[in-house]
């Protein structure tokens, strides 16, 4: 591959301490290098912001999203953001695009690329269905991908925790990642997915899981310790119990405190808390609920063992999809909405429900405020990832809107002016005047997600990193993001250039090339002792013979589903 040099841009590369300097970025054979020859292609980034390619560490982009598509043919016509949503005819280069919250796979690849994002992590897949995730990954062009594997309601996981057999649990976690070709351990409403098999849920981290002598707290600790013992690149990735329930704040804080006793095996958090907005509510019902963001932020500011992402709400239609089966049933009843439900044998549950957020609802207005409050009240941007929990809080194509809001108190106050009075004494955003700068935005969308996931070649522009670069047509020395909200949003929505693996894939906001991306997965099973493997396989064979509806021989994802794999061995990094 040819050489490339990006000149004259204002570079934000927080991982390498570069904060708005006019540096040159050199790329050779798809990787960032120190220097290139005189014949290198010159990309002129005069008057532009230059950042590493964006990393979305939590998005629902393959698997359950297909249920959302089938449920919402109406979504395919939504076009609130021209160029990033709705129906677009094929071209000589591009496949047809449709949709907003649940776009087709090709649109997902094109639109993330237009935003300057180059890596995405599917947030939740049951191991059984991992083959489906990889099939959709293969149909999402341009981007590099990875998948997090659901383990928080898995029968064998719970059994080993109840038995206190930490070695077998460790072997099983490694085996599940191998079976699914997954990247990390996802825990959704621990224990709740299993109870949902019987139409029940758990309501605190100390409830018992039906038929298993364990609590959500024990599941969280067990998986966290297994995760650290295996030295996985990512920590456990946790969706707490009681999502979306007024008064869930104590559950969330208890979960955060619980993990204080686990020691990280790497230079990263021991737990990533996802879409924290949905877990930061006080009160006893929607009538008396208020923002709990201040309490969460206070804890986060005093402790360093956690990271989180926002789960920012975007006003307008959204599509909720989660392994939290009981939550989706509750959503469907509350909004009288369509409901889809899955019960995944021994592994977990899930559901999909469309809904819409409106600023005229005080509850939705406060939810919108909480996401921003969390990101602004937590001082260290290295603890915060920007997300909308796409498409649960809103479609990823709204990321520029959310990011620009973090940079402008003026714009936030304009939005808040339209809120109902009932929202105002339940939130504190109107009193927060912090405005993030470009370096903090680059941290929350690039450097932090890559570090949080343990992706060493992503999220930065140092030598050896992947040649993934986003160039936005906005001059930091000329444009003040605190007053020019629309200019920031426009620049972040349509990158001047997106470069993926050293190839220009977006120029002037249009997709110019559609290479295929890589899929990252973690092979920790190699490092498990043979005696432990033997002990585990005896159990697995028994489980498959007794309970699974498929054969063990049909379970493991085959090589054919990962044509461009990147296998990561925990001991190698």
């Amino acid at each position, binding site marked *: 591959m040819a050489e490339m040099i990006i000149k004259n841009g204002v570079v934000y590369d927080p991982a390498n301490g570069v904060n708005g300097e006019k540096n040159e970025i050199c790329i050779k054979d798809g990787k960032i290098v120190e220097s290139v020859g005189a014949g290198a292609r010159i990309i002129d980034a005069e008057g532009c912001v230059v950042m590493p390619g964006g990393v979305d560490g939590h998005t629902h982009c393959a698997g359950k999203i*297909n249920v959302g*598509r*089938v449920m919402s*043919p109406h979504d395919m016509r939504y076009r609130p953001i021209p160029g990033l949503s709705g129906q677009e*005819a094929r071209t000589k280069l591009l496949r047809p695009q449709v*949709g907003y919250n649940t776009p*087709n796979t090709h649109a997902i690849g094109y639109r993330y690329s237009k935003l300057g994002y180059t890596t995405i992590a599917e947030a939740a897949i049951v191991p059984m*269905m991992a083959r489906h995730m990889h*099939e959709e990954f293969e149909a999402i062009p341009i981007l590099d991908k990875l998948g997090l594997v659901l383990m928080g309601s898995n029968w064998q996981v719970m059994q080993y925790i109840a038995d206190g057999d930490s070695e077998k649990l460790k072997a099983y976690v490694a085996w599940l990642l191998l079976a699914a070709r997954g990247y990390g351990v996802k825990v959704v409403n621990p224990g709740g997915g299993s109870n949902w098999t019987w*139409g029940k849920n758990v309501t605190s981290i100390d409830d018992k899981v039906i038929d298993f002598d364990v609590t959500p707290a024990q599941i969280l600790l067990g998986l966290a310790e297994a995760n650290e013992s295996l030295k996985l690149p990512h920590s456990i990735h946790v969706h707490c119990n009681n999502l979306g329930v007024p008064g869930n704040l104590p559950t969330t804080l208890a979960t955060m405190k619980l993990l204080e006793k686990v020691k990280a095996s790497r230079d990263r958090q021991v737990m990533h808390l996802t879409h924290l907005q949905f877990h930061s509510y006080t009160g006893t019902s929607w009538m008396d609920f208020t923002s709990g963001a201040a309490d969460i932020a206070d804890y986060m500011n005093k402790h360093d063992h956690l990271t989180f992402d926002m789960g920012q709400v975007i006003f307008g239609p959204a599509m909720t999809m989660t392994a939290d089966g009981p939550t989706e049933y509750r959503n469907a009843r509350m909004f009288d909405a369509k409901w889809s439900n899955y019960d995944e044998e021994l592994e977990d549950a899930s559901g999909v429900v469309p809904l819409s957020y409106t600023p005229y609802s005080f509850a939705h207005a406060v939810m919108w405020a909480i996401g921003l409050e969390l990101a602004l009240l937590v001082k260290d941007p290295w603890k915060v990832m920007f997300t909308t929990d796409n498409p649960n809080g809103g479609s990823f194509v709204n990321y520029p809107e959310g990011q620009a809001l973090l940079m402008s108190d003026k714009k936030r106050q304009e939005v808040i002016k339209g809120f109902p009075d009932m929202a105002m004494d339940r939130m504190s955003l109107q009193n927060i005047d912090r405005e993030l700068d470009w370096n903090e935005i680059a941290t929350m969308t690039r450097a932090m997600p890559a570090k949080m996931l343990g992706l060493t070649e992503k999220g930065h522009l140092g030598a050896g990193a992947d040649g993934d670069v986003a160039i936005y047509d906005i001059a930091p020395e000329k444009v003040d993001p605190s007053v020019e909200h629309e200019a920031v949003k426009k620049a972040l929505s349509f990158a001047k250039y997106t470069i993926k693996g050293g190839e220009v894939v977006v120029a002037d906001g249009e997709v110019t090339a559609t290479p295929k991306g890589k899929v990252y997965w973690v092979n920790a099973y190699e490092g498990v002792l043979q005696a432990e493997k033997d002990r585990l396989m005896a159990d697995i064979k028994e489980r498959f013979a007794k309970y699974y509806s498929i054969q063990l021989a049909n379970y493991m994802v085959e090589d054919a589903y990962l044509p461009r794999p990147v296998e990561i061995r925990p001991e190698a990094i």
Partner: protein
Amino acid sequence: MPKETVIAAAEMFKASKFAIIYFGMGVTQTRARYKNGDNVSSLVSDLNQTNKVVMMPMRGHYNVTGFGQVAAWEAGFPMALDFARGYAYYNPGETGTNDILMRKEADAFITGAADPGAHFPQESVKHLFKIPAIQVDGYANPTTEFSDVVIPAAIAGVECEGTAYRMDCQPIRMKKLIDTTFKSDEEILTDLINKVRELKGGA
């Protein structure tokens, strides 16, 4: 249906720990069509106030679920795709295969891994006799009778690899067991589109 039967069914549901309603074409293809399914889903939603109850469609035709899955992620909709606008347009009742055949709108037809000759309404099949028809299939069946061109294909899971989705959407790897001289569906369709592009000079 007698009242006693309805009450007996309700008692069964209430006594169950986990109930599944499997529904088939008797629900979706009789009068009121999707409205019948809507009634079943309302019942299931209400039953979950007391018991765990779910519903699942009984799909036919081998990998029909897989077609729906792939069509949904590739184009946005699971069936009845109309690409005339350059992107998928979807309106069952207007763009379904039988909607188009009944209106005698189609002037050519290609089918694979299905047997419309046996399963489509007579009016649709009559039109299929009148227009050029291509069949891609491993076996002869009633569709072969009106097909002008028959391209025999390798059998996935025996003669070639692939993926099939069970009716609960569980993907299963189809393995190759024996060699064949026949091409797979994918190879045949790829050859066809390449030839069409060559003839039409398209992208």
